[in-house]
């Protein structure tokens, strides 16, 4: 009892998507009777993240859960932790292959590019030919990969269709509005998270285009689930972050106590949330979903 695990993410402090994971860690920690520490680079700098992994290893926990935000940057620190005899589970971004190469026990998640591509393919099937990818965090490599994946899924070059929107909601809203005004033939929108989605919903409402344009988003929050219900958003890509936090803690605890662990990696997503299945998701959007 009382094992100590460290979860290292690549997200900056203020990225709200990670709250679900933080909450799931707390739930899992309580249920299993272990402590889980959540750590992240405050500005989202992956080089800082590598230091945090090293530091986590130095503090000799019973296990490390880490995202493979960038294989290059993290391969050194993660394999060093493995080498030290610390059980490691990788989550969220990165591929199962990378996870294996690092010597991690298993991987829980879904890679960014593939998620974007899946969304793009579905959007294409629903008729999207020209789109806007609202990137609220352009300096983050994962966001660009999502846009790129979506573009490849739709089957058109990304080109100028990625909007560097910034974080400020009024700016996001007005940049989207400006883009749509200047490119009236746009028939698809993909937003990369609540930070971009909420103001985009507002922009579409103001422009009278709500429901007129295909709209997909990553992740969930209250506004998004409302928009899915009223038809503004066609679908949200859900990778079920709760599982990415919860499962590794459970796995590691059992591994530490009884030496048992599933032999294969777990795909937590991609799942699509649409009008059809929103009801059950809605209540917990943003906290556990």
């Amino acid at each position: 009892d009382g094992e100590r695990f460290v979860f290292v993410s690549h997200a900056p402090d203020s990225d709200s998507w990670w709250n679900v994971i933080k909450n799931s860690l707390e739930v899992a920690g309580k249920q299993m009777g272990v402590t889980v520490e959540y750590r992240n680079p405050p500005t989202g700098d992956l080089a800082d993240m590598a230091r945090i992994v090293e530091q986590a290893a130095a503090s000799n926990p019973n296990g490390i859960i880490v995202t493979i935000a960038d294989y290059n940057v993290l391969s050194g620190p993660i394999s060093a932790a493995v080498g030290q005899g610390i059980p490691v589970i990788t989550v969220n971004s990165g591929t199962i292959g990378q996870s294996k190469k690092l010597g991690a026990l298993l991987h829980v998640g879904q890679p960014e590019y593939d998620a974007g591509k899946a969304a793009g393919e579905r959007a294409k099937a629903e008729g999207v030919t020209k789109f806007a990818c609202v990137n609220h965090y352009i300096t983050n490599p994962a966001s660009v990969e999502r846009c790129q994946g979506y573009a490849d899924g739709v089957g058109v070059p990304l080109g100028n269709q990625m909007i560097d929107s910034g974080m400020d909601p009024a700016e996001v809203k007005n940049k989207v509005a400006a883009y749509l005004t200047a490119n009236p033939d746009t028939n698809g929108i993909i937003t990369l998270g609540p930070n971009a989605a909420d103001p985009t919903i507002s922009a579409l409402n103001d422009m009278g285009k709500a429901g007129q344009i295909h709209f997909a988003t990553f992740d969930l929050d209250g506004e998004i689930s409302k928009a899915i219900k009223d038809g503004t958003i066609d679908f949200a890509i859900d990778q079920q972050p709760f599982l990415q936090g919860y499962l590794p803690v459970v796995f590691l605890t059992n591994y530490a106590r009884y030496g048992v662990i599933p032999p294969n990696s777990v795909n937590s997503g991609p799942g699509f949330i649409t009008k059809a299945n929103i009801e059950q998701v809605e209540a917990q959007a943003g906290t556990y979903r």
Partner: protein
Amino acid sequence: MTDERLQQVSKFRRALIRPELGATAGAILVFGFFLVIAGNSGMFALQGIENWTVVSAQFAVIAVGACLLMIAGEFDLSVGSMIGFAGTIIAILSVQLGWPVWLAIISSFAICIAIGALNGFLVIRTGLPSFIVTLASLYILRGLTIWLSIRTTRQTIIGGVKEAAAGDWLAPVFGGKILTGLFTWMGQHGWIATFAQGPKAGQPVVAGVSMLVVWALALIVFGHVLLTRTKFGNWIFAAGGDAQAARYVGVPVNRVKVLMFMFTAFCACVFATCQVMEFGSAAADRGLLKEFEAIICVVIGGALLTGGYGSVIGAALGALIFGVVQQGLFFSGAESSLFRVFLGTILILAVILNTYIRRMITGER
């Protein structure tokens, strides 16, 4: 004494030489530029105008505060963090603790203004540069915001403010629109475009003038009158021009500076409240880098970073330039990552122009 050794400067040229000249010229250039390259992209249609007006108004709200503070000889790097903090406080108080929204708003204003006063107090008490003191506040406030919102709500984005604000008397002052009747009427008479289809079919494309714009105008007028037409305005110039000299002739410099820090905090809080009321949510990362953007507007507007010189009208024009350039690039379809490159370039050009103008005014070398 140097009269006869000095060439005469024409009346016209003298009338032209004002702190806001550079910004005025810049604004004209920028409008001309976008009229040419994005004239038919909808940027200057009603909806397009609303678009960049709102963005500019947002910049203007914080620029007015930053402008007066900068003229008083200080600046505040914590504006951005303060925006995130103020919004989060409103959301926590109203959504989480269930306070009435008007009380949450007023409390948030009170707390922010108190923090502004604390910034000012630290600066005048320790004699440290405001860069350092407010850099510390930047970190402390941002940390507190994230910590507070995670502590109380397990999220860094707190929604549901719109629902909480329904029926509140104070919320529309920040989040509403005015003149909606007029716009509807104009829409009905075909004077302005209406939506052709979709859920809003028949309504005018622009529903009214956003309260944010009203706040921006009100703050600009207030700031301009305060600065140029009142005793206190003279003290602001004096405090920034030479604090010691001002103190000697009886200007209460410390009071002026602290009040300006408080006013800056007030502006940040207006910004945050308008945003929270319009979008219905607060997030811990709101306002990132806004401190720089405010300073950039003010400096483009002709103010002197070292204090004692500047103009609110100039700062407002700076905000307009900033907003128009930012939105114009989207209207014209330029690669959006180049926005920062443009911004940097405009900043440096504007400042060089302003320096030249200021030297002509003051005879400074």
